[in-house]
Every structure is written in structure tokens, then in C-alpha cells.
């Protein structure tokens, strides 16, 4: 089962440049932290895949082991683990997230911050 779960996680990460493991879906998040990261990506108009861990208990536990990270959401960009809600929020606020998207050649909409 663990191998199957790992394969599933790898497949999601490999097939989706931006992959957010979250509780709920981007349209109906089931947790405030998942909603926050999903909203930041939406604001930047980044095309991302939301993987709902609540649909699969093996996935919900497996992703924590896979990333060696105890919480959800978890964001992967081009197969690299970027962080959870706190880190993404900090990177969003200090401009590092935009820089990272640029450096990884990800399409997004630049917003003017006034």
C-alpha cells in the first residue's frame, strides 16, 4: 500500500508542474490553511492541480512521510517541495514566491502592488 501511495504521489508531482496537496479542492477548500495557499495561487493566476488528500486516507498520511513534513497543505513546484502554508504565505508577502515562479519559468500574472 505504501509503495502504491508513493507511486500515486510521484505521478501527481511529475504530471503537474504546480501541485498542491490540500484538504478539499481549490473551489471548495475544507481547511483555512489549504484555502489560503490555494487563494494565493489563484490571485497570481497560476495554473495548478489541487490534490484532495481527504479523498484518500493513505494519501493524507503518505504525503506527510513522502515530504517529511507533518502538515497539509504542501506545495510542489516542478517536483520540488516548496513548503506549507506559513512558508508560502511569507514568500508571497516578501516577493520570493514571484521570484521563484519566474526562475522556474512558470506562467503567472504579475500584480501591481500599490
Amino acid at each position, binding site marked *: 500500500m505504501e509503495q502504491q501511495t508513493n507511486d500515486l504521489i510521484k505521478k501527481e508531482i511529475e504530471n503537474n508542474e504546480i501541485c498542491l496537496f490540500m*484538504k478539499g479542492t481549490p473551489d471548495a477548500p475544507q481547511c483555512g490553511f489549504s484555502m489560503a495557499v490555494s487563494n494565493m495561487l489563484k490571485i497570481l493566476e497560476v495554473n495548478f492541480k489541487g490534490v484532495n488528500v481527504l479523498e484518500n486516507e493513505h494519501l493524507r498520511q503518505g504525503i506527510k512521510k513522502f515530504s517529511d513534513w*507533518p502538515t497539509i497543505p504542501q506545495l510542489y513546484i516542478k517536483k520540488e517541495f516548496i*513548503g506549507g502554508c*506559513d512558508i508560502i504565505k511569507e514568500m508571497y508577502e516578501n516577493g520570493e514566491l514571484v521570484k521563484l515562479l519566474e526562475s522556474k519559468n512558470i506562467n503567472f500574472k504579475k500584480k501591481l502592488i500599490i
Partner: protein
Amino acid sequence: MVEGIYGTTMTMNLEEIEKLIKEGLPDATVEIQDLAGDGNHYSATVTSTQFSGKSKIEQHKMVYNSLKGKMGNELHALAIKTKE
């Protein structure tokens, strides 16, 4: 214990969290806030010289390690901010 969309709802108190982080990172300054006053949603700002030269992911992992597996279990909602 109720298993809901937020996981188990066992709670931890503020002093307990602070104690664990300080045990794990002895030089750290820890500021914790009970965000909702419900003993379940906290934010912690942890300042430690041990974070120097480490990535944000590594820094957060150090805090998680000090919480000895409680993060994501008894401790559902702890927003972490690390500073060098």
C-alpha cells in the same frame, strides 16, 4: 477525541508548546499567541541563532522536530514564523 476534517481535536496548551520548543532549541526566543482563544489555534514566532544558514523548510522542520510528532496530531493549527 473527534476525528473531523481538522483531524483529532485533542488540544495542547500554550505553555506546553513553548516548553517543547525551548527544549528542542535552547537558545530560542518563543512568542506564542492563542489566536482564537480556543486552545487549538496558535501562532509561534521562534527566533534562534541555530536557524542561521538554513533554508525556511529546514528551519520549520527544526521547530516541528522539537514538537516531537505533535504537530499535525494534537497540535493541528500552529502557524510558525522563524527568525534568525
